[in-house]
């Protein structure tokens, strides 16, 4: 019974993929520029909140020890504990919302820099920036290049749980 099913599976897959390739050959695939826009990082990080801007890695590195600047890590708590920008607070975007008690952490900051991992396309840091701006934080920036670039440039990091988080 199972071998016949496997044979059928091969036929279904071959037919489906063949049809897909036919569609591709006739209609063509979307051009990479239409979905992978390398210059997109020049556009504002959050379309809905024009006040939110990018901040470049070297500029942000100079602000790590500034007391009026808070770095907000949008990645999961696990990733945060494995390593994060020195002095950053953890505001995970796992659920797509900010926990209310975490909002109080950044309310008082003059500037909040959000970051996550996946380079300039990182959606979590932009989402966090959008939420913070909507919550009334005046100066919100998104770190261009995220944590990956920060690590590569050997800028200050630390690991372990967020000590100031509730």
């Amino acid at each position, binding site marked *: 019974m*199972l071998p*016949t*099913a*496997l*044979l*059928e*599976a*091969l*036929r*279904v*897959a071959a*037919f*489906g*993929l063949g*049809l*897909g*390739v*036919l*569609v*591709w050959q006739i*209609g*063509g*695939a*979307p*051009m*990479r520029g*239409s*979905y*992978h826009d390398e210059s997109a990082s020049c556009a504002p990080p959050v379309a809905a909140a024009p006040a939110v801007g990018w901040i470049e890695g070297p500029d942000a590195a100079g602000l790590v020890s500034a007391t009026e600047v808070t770095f907000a890590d*949008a*990645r*999961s708590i696990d*990733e945060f504990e494995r390593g994060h920008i020195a002095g950053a607070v953890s505001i995970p*975007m*796992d659920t*797509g919302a900010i926990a209310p008690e975490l909002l109080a952490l950044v309310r008082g900051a003059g500037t909040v820099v959000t970051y*996550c*991992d*996946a380079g300039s*396309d*990182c*959606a*979590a840091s932009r*989402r966090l920036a959008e939420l913070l701006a909507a919550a009334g934080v005046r100066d919100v920036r998104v770190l261009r290049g995220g944590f990956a670039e920060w690590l590569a440039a050997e800028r200050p990091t630390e690991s372990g749980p967020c000590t100031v988080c509730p």
Partner: protein
Amino acid sequence: MTAPSPSLLPAPRSALVWGSLGARVALAAVYLLAAVPKLGDPAAFAQDIDNYHLLPVDWAGVAAVVLPPLELVVAAALLLGVHARGAALVSAGMLIAFAAAMGQAIARGIDLDCGCFGSALAMHVSGWSILRNVVLAALSLPIVLGPDLGPEELWGRIRPARAPAAD
């Protein structure tokens, strides 16, 4: 047609028949819902695939046009009962592969929309979307293990069987 009417079937076989039929219709509906928005906007689907940071950039565009027809073929096979078992296996394979893609995205801290139903239904990738895929993949079991209902038997069950020809 020689199939006995469902009420005469012993209970386990009957349960498998209806479980298999239900699973086929449910999976086919999911694939139809999934494929149609993607066919309408391949660039948006390519963007969703690209966001997984799994395939080389140019392959994301190709995958965006090749996957929806495959999903449609699987849906058609499940609905029509032509190679339904094979389609169920392909379906399980796709769902597990997609779940793996979601898992690697979560593990790498990539925050993204799953793109599962195109951009029509934006859904955040999470443990729940992986669980959903596993449940859908499990729906293949009654189809693969259940009786192999060909098209004529399936449609015969839904329409009243034709009166047997006089001998």
